């Protein structure tokens, strides 16, 4: 029985898996802004390409577009948001089931969950560019699309480090480089304004991803990144993975100040269970609740997500 489940789960892990330690170079910390400005300047100086566009995606593949993309199938919720933010929303011809923002995305054809791309559904949408998450399952899909003459970009959209590269690539593919540049600047400013500098007395926050078995998020997760910028300290920042099952005992020993939940209920159901009540922060109902897809994926709403969480943390800290 469990055997039958495994392939499906592996796929989901593939979509959710983050690769730790990639591209930490472009983190938006004040100290690195000169370097960033240089990179941006170098990009903006490049003249707009005439004729075929040659792009390098995150899998290291060279993807050739005949010209700027006019019909885009975005099988990543984050890139769907960027497309609209870049003013290219009307070029979207396909999206995933999870693309819930902006509201206008709902009017675009749903091409499935994007975990295992449905090639037929993609072909039916007749795109001239397909955006796929960089996962092992999507690599063969990109090749199959290429065989049919449809270019596909494999993109990593795990954290804030990916934003710069992603926007630059999308700007070139859609021939909206100027908009992409100004958006990049706006996001950077927004992130700087929203973020709280790291403090020694930052509250230790346990992120509860799931309660049975107890699962938390490590430092490779996007929510951990948002939390640290909002002035909290991830209790399990020492875990390099995106998410992990941890023992309640280690949570008790690490003594979180606050418990961050992403559920709809302000007091989650697990709070009333005996084994969770051993944790003082749970027993004393020191919960911080965030809800919404802006906490799941880096995108144009990330600065606002940081502000929301920052306010919630401040309200919960005595």
């Amino acid at each position, binding site marked *: *029985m*469990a055997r*039958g*489940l*495994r392939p*499906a*789960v592996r796929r*989901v*892990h593939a*979509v*959710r898996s983050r690769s730790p330690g990639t591209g930490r170079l472009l983190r938006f910390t004040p100290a690195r802004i000169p370097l960033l400005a240089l990179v941006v300047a170098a990009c903006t100086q490049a003249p707009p390409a005439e004729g075929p566009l040659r792009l390098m995606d995150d899998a290291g593949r060279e993807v050739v577009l005949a010209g700027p993309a006019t019909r885009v199938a975005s099988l990543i919720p984050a890139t769907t948001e960027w497309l609209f933010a870049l003013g290219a929303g009307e070029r979207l011809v396909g999206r995933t089931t*999870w693309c819930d923002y902006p509201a206008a995305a709902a009017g675009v054809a749903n091409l499935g*969950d994007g*975990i295992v791309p449905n090639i037929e559904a993609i072909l039916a949408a007749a795109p001239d560019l397909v955006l796929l998450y960089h996962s092992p399952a999507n690599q063969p899909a990109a090749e199959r699309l290429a065989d049919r003459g449809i270019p596909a970009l494999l993109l990593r959209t795990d954290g804030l480090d990916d934003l710069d590269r992603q926007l630059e690539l999308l700007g070139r593919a859609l021939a909206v480089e100027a908009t992409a540049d100004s958006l990049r600047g706006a996001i950077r400013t927004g992130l700087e304004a929203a973020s709280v500098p790291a403090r020694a007395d930052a509250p230790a926050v346990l992120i509860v991803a*799931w309660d*049975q*078995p*107890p*699962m938390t998020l490590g430092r490779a997760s996007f929510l951990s990144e948002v939390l640290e910028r909002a002035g909290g300290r991830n209790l*399990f920042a020492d*875990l390099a993975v995106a998410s*992990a*099952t*941890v*023992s*309640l*005992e*280690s949570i*008790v*020993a*690490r003594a979180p100040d606050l418990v961050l939940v992403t559920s709809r209920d302000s007091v989650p*159901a*697990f709070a*009333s*269970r*005996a*084994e969770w009540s*051993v944790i003082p922060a749970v027993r004393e109902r020191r919960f911080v609740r965030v809800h919404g897809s802006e906490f799941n994926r880096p995108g144009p709403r990330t600065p606002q997500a940081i502000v929301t969480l920052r306010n919630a943390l401040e309200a919960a800290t005595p």
Partner: protein
Amino acid sequence: MNVRAVVLVGAGVAAALAVGVAVGATALSPAQVLAGLVDPAAESAPIVRGLRLPRVLLAFLVGGALGVSGAALQALVRNPLAEPYLLGLSGGAGLGAVLAMSLEAPGTWAVPLAAFAGAIAAVSLVYRLSSVVGRRLDPRVLLLAGVIVGAFSAAIMTTIITLSPADQLRNAFLWLLGGFSAASWGSVSLFAAYAVLPLGAIWYSGRQLDLLTLGEEPAQALGADTERLKRVVLLATSLLTAAGVAVCGIIGFVGLVVPHMLRGLVGPLHRALLPAVFLAGGGFLVLADALARTVVRPVELPVGVVTALVGVPLFAVLLRRSVR
């Protein structure tokens, strides 16, 4: 049962329980563990009394129940490969749990209760299927029916999971893999009170199970009511396994490996074998859980993975020895 076996099993179980309470994700000294055990106000009390002790006891009870279920079923179907999950229980329990998760059933007991209901429904279906075929309950038909009901439930379950949001999919999978993270004094006492009756019924059937190993007709000639025996043992093992799945997910290999190990040590007579299997199964699962909690701390492994990783090589060695 000889004295050597009693001492060996007793010492093993005592050591397993001690190790289970002594180790964990946090490093506590033996003095701290002792203080936590005897003094509710001690600093280590929340960890030792609140988390470790109920967890060790629950693992012990579930391991014992799974071991006894395995031993009884192996005698009942006269097949050394019989395991509680072969009767379609795991498929049914999984389906129940996944249904409760995908419908977002409220309450902390919704998923365990649904798993329990699913397991009982699956076994009832297996029983119905195998009794329709002939008047007598044929062990081979029983196993076949178990396999097809299990496969069918797994197919429905995979369909539901494929159609649900990604988060739920992962969570359902993790829940099914098994673990004792949800152990509390409430679940320990509930399971203990509940398991007494089915365990007693199986132990009471011990003599008749001995007769059954001779074959169905000789057993009947010697006065065993084999049809009634089959119904009682089937019902008792199903109830035990379903409750085990409800409190900790699906944990394989305990019911398969432990009875085989103990037969060599204690002998095949069930009145002696069953208590020994209960103790050893409990000790085995306590040790497996201790490993699951500590090997990659603070991360926890699913305990079913540990029982398989430890149980399979052990079983392979036993297999080689018995073939020789």
